[in-house]
């Protein structure tokens, strides 16, 4: 037995069990915030260091992934000395309708066929990378990381209505990028006039 290696205490074991498995998720979220690999690397390290040092504040049984996302975002904001001054449109009903109209356009011009393509993920990943903040981090949290609106609201420090608004606008922008991609790939008929769903 090697006496130079002290036995792990319970905190370390719990941290390894409950926090470390989410490194891929934290990395994706960090990348969504920083938009470049070098800064994402630093942010993931900073997130896990902060999480380890404050593990005593984690409530056992609560959502460790959500807790890590919150630490990650706060670390990002501190690193950029960024203030939460984003202005959001709160008319989520209108956002939904506009998004649905965009869906209708994709179906009508044939670009929705793109969704059944197996090689769509790279195009969507690129579109996600190009998405502006604060929409990108919201879409990543809800649509990629499966966080509820409530959880995303907690992580981002904004009301649920703001999460919805950002999410719907982000999705709409992604769909617009996909339409352009579909046209370039020959999936869609560029000449088709945009039409709205008949009764929406």
């Amino acid at each position, binding site marked *: 037995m090697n006496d130079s*290696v*002290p*036995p*792990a*205490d319970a905190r*370390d*074991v719990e*941290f*390894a069990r409950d926090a470390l498995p989410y*490194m*891929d998720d*934290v*990395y*994706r979220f960090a*990348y969504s915030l920083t938009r470049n*690999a070098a800064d*994402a*690397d630093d942010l*993931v*390290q900073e997130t*896990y*260091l902060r999480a*380890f*040092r404050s593990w005593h504040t984690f409530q056992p049984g609560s959502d460790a992934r959500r807790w890590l996302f919150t630490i990650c975002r706060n670390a990002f904001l501190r690193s950029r000395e960024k203030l939460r001054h984003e202005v959001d449109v709160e008319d989520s*009903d209108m956002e*939904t*309708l506009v*998004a*649905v109209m965009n*869906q*209708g356009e*994709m*179906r009508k011009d044939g670009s*929705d066929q793109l*969704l*059944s393509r197996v090689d*769509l*993920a*790279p195009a*969507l*990943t690129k579109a*996600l990378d190009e998405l502006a903040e604060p929409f990108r981090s919201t*879409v990543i949290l*809800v*649509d*990629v*990381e*499966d966080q*509820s*609106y409530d959880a995303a609201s907690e992580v981002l420090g904004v009301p649920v209505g703001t999460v*919805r608004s950002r*999410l*719907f606008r982000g*999705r709409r922008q*992604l*769909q617009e990028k996909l339409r352009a991609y579909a046209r370039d790939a020959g999936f869609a008929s560029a000449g088709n006039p945009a039409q709205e*769903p*008949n*009764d*929406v």
Partner: protein
Amino acid sequence: MSDDMPMLDCRSAMQQLWDYVDGELTAERMQAVERHLDACANCHPHAEFAERFLAALHQTREDRSCPQDVRAKVMASLRDAGMKVT
């Protein structure tokens, strides 16, 4: 929701579509939207499209995972911070 409740109109159903596919509505509203989508040939494709779009978006998870060298750096910094389990 009982069967004699009035059917949602298309506008109401579409206003709640994203919340519906995200599972963020109350059980009663989920049922109401589902009932409309089942019966409405115009709105049903929108829901199908939304679900396919979100499924494709979710698949991007596979496209980006934490690189091994970053994992190693994280573990090294945790060891430096006193973590004994690596």
